[in-house]
């Protein structure tokens, strides 16, 4: 090669290498953030006035008042603002619901009584309009739970960000969901009529678990002893095995005090690890719940008491009473369209006796603990995933504005169907 040509190629090559290095560096730069000069509320540690959080490659790498900000960091000025962990909604049907009256858009409730093998994970529509709306108030994770029948299926914990359900999954399965047989009617007379039907249904549920256990034991026996044969593969019973072994919690939806007591007996008899969901009359049976050491996912606080004697504020006071007895309480909305109201349910409980710090924990660290993901989520600690929100006040207050939401260490787009229509019609003249 001629010398001039060689030099050109060589220089060109160098430029290419430098360019790609530079591109690599800007990729690195894109992953480093620093939120500076803000009031940081880690939840599991004291509040830091005028602090900084540094994020790199999706994780929190530094938190404190005197923190070195890497040169390549994208800086978010938190002056006058607050940094909280992003919130967690402990029961929703996000991705399984679009419009309530349009059956084609509904996927949360399978038909049939026992569906342990039904999983929400791959049915989640990442494009659901409710997802961006929910995360714009600062909710980054949500449990998506199946309902319907008696054994509804298996739930999944998702991040509210991702190009498809696979990218959204944080943990799947999270629990085996059971809708515990209980009184539906409000009137005493109808309740008595139902009691027989309910006892029968509870026995049916027990029998199903017993059958599943036999299937599992037979399978284990056959694995050890070649002379024994396992039963033909039964997908439903296969799905029961992790719960029977105590590896997968059963998440039991139960409301009335009588049913809660029955449900406690049930999980103890069946030797299951349990979380209870709903529990609006939990305040009537605190001692039993405490003894059984069962954490509670409260459903929407916006209910009325079964009997006027319970007091108009029973659903509101419930959380405070459970908390005082030492029971771990987390909050959920149970839906999709108003999943963004999660923080206000927690605040309502705080208005009626739950300490404010507990209300905040009930939408951050406690859900992470209950779902077994607290190593990575639920608070602002070095090493955890950077799911954070930057606000102008407490996220449980209705009037608070959420300025930034970071999921996996990256700010997410806060626009959604509502803001888009708002902007469109604001501009109309």
């Amino acid at each position: 090669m001629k010398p001039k040509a060689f030099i050109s190629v060589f220089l060109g090559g160098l430029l290419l290498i430098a360019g790609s290095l530079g591109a690599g560096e800007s990729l690195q730069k894109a992953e480093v953030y620093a939120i500076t000069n803000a009031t940081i509320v880690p939840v599991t540690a004291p509040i830091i006035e005028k602090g900084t959080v540094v994020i790199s490659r999706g994780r929190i790498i530094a938190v404190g008042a005197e923190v070195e900000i890497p040169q390549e960091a994208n800086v978010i000025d938190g002056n006058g603002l607050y940094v909280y962990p992003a919130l967690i909604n402990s029961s929703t049907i996000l991705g399984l619901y679009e419009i309530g009256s349009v059956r084609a858009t509904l996927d949360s409730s399978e038909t049939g009584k026992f569906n342990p093998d039904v999983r929400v994970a791959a049915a989640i529509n990442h494009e659901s309009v409710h997802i961006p709306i929910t995360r714009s108030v600062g909710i980054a994770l949500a449990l998506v739970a199946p309902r319907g029948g008696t054994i509804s299926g298996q739930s999944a914990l998702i991040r509210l960000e991702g190009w498809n359900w696979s990218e959204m999954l944080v943990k799947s399965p999270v629990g085996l969901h059971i809708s515990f047989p209980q009184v539906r009617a409000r009137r005493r007379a109808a309740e008595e009529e139902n009691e027989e039907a309910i006892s029968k249904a509870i026995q049916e549920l027990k029998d199903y678990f017993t059958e599943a256990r036999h299937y599992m034991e037979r399978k284990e026996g056959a694995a050890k002893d070649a002379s024994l044969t396992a039963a033909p593969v039964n997908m439903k019973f296969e799905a029961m095995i992790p719960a029977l072994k105590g590896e997968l919690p059963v998440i039991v939806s139960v409301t009335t005090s009588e049913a809660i007591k029955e449900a406690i007996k049930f999980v103890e008899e069946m030797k299951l690890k349990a979380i209870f969901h709903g529990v609006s009359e939990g305040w009537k049976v605190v001692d039993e719940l405490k003894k059984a050491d069962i954490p509670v996912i409260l459903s929407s606080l916006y209910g009325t008491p079964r009997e006027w004697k319970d007091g108009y504020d029973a659903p509101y006071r419930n959380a405070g009473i459970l908390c005082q007895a030492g029971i771990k309480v987390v909050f959920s909305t149970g839906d999709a369209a108003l999943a963004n109201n999660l923080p206000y349910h927690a605040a309502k409980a705080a208005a009626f006796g739950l300490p404010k710090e507990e209300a905040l924990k009930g939408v951050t660290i406690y859900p992470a603990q209950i779902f077994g993901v607290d190593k990575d989520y639920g608070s602002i600690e070095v090493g955890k995933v950077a799911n954070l929100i930057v606000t102008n006040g407490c996220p449980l207050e209705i009037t608070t504005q959420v300025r930034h939401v970071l999921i996996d260490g990256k700010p997410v787009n806060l626009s959604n169907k509502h803001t888009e229509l708002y902007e469109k019609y604001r501009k109309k003249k």
Partner: protein
Amino acid sequence: MKRLPIIIGGILVSLLILLLPPLVHTAYGQDLLVKNGKVVTLGKKGTIEGGDVLIEKGRIKKIGKGLRAPEGVRVIDASGMWVIPGIIDTHTHIGVEGGVNEGSNSVTSEVRIIDVIWPEDISIFYALTGGCTTCNTMHGSANTIGGQNVVIKNKWGASADELIYQRAPKELKFALGENVKQSNFPRVSGQPRYPQTRMGVEALLRQKFTEARAYVKKWDDYNKQKKAGKNPIPPRRDLQLDVLVELMQGKVRAQVHCYRADEILMMLKVAEEYGFKISSLEHVLEGYKVADAIAAHGASCSTFADSWGYKMEAFDAIPYNSALLAEAGVNITINSDSGERIRRLFQDAAKCVKYGGMSEEDALKTVTLNSAKCLGIDKWVGSIEEGKDGDLAIFNTNPLSAYTRCEMTIIEGKVYFDRQAYQEEMEKLREEAKKKEEKK
């Protein structure tokens, strides 16, 4: 004279009959002094820190500082608390006995809620626990023209007659859209009820108002002939059309349950063509799309804070609806349409601050003064002003805070909800129940 005692007796009785109504009327309400609260009047006096409100015989006599109560009058210490006008819900179905829809026909303007008021509905008490003192209770939205509403004061414990707010103007309820079309019910066998489309809803409205016009003409002709000394046969009374005529004559207000922009515009046009005014569009979730037309017509809007997505026609609803309508100059209120949600309208009002940046005062108006205007009763309720009804709600902190709690609700000077007293009473009841259990 034998007759004299009878004549004197007659005069006395007549005087009594003449004077009795005013006597009964002055026993309108009670006396009360609320002291030292943060009084958010939403009226001329603005917000008064450490303010007092003196109520005499159910009406606000004076607002100020350092007021003294006449002897024997109950004093409520509102130190550290917020005092706002009693909350008003323009759209509920509470206190109604039996079904709220005469669903056999799509036009039932002749049926009336006033005939089926149920004062023992516990939702009335629940409303009080949320500071709600007045509500407009009505038919559902099954029919194009559902019937006549009633405004009630949530006087828990009172009789049906006592609940009715006599001053409120008469109102007729209309509905448009999916509920009227029965879209979300399973298909019944046989001929479905007309109308089943939005086209049919409009056609039915036009048909009814045209009938009403013809009906009015018949009565006009009859009256002319009578005046001219002739002896004509009167036309047949039609109770259904009577109300529509009153609406066209401006004697009755029209309230329209609606969702979609197209049906809102349709209704405005029908109203303009047949010469009646729509006083309020309810739910009106797509109102923001036609805000200018609504403002031009002069209708109030009563919407949800953020409820949406449950029906197709609710799928374009946005929580910024109230802000956009307010910007266009529409009188906007927030309603609950629920015996449960009526307990937390103050939280819904707070959402007007979050979505669209309404001021706190304007947000509070959406569940008080604006609602009063919507129902045509703002002369007497909706703000804390001298001369208005003594309807107040007392909160332990800013009513727009998610952490707030309603402590007391007062209607015409009488305390109808007192949280502290309520808790003491419930505690007593629980202890008595416990003792009974132990005895067993």
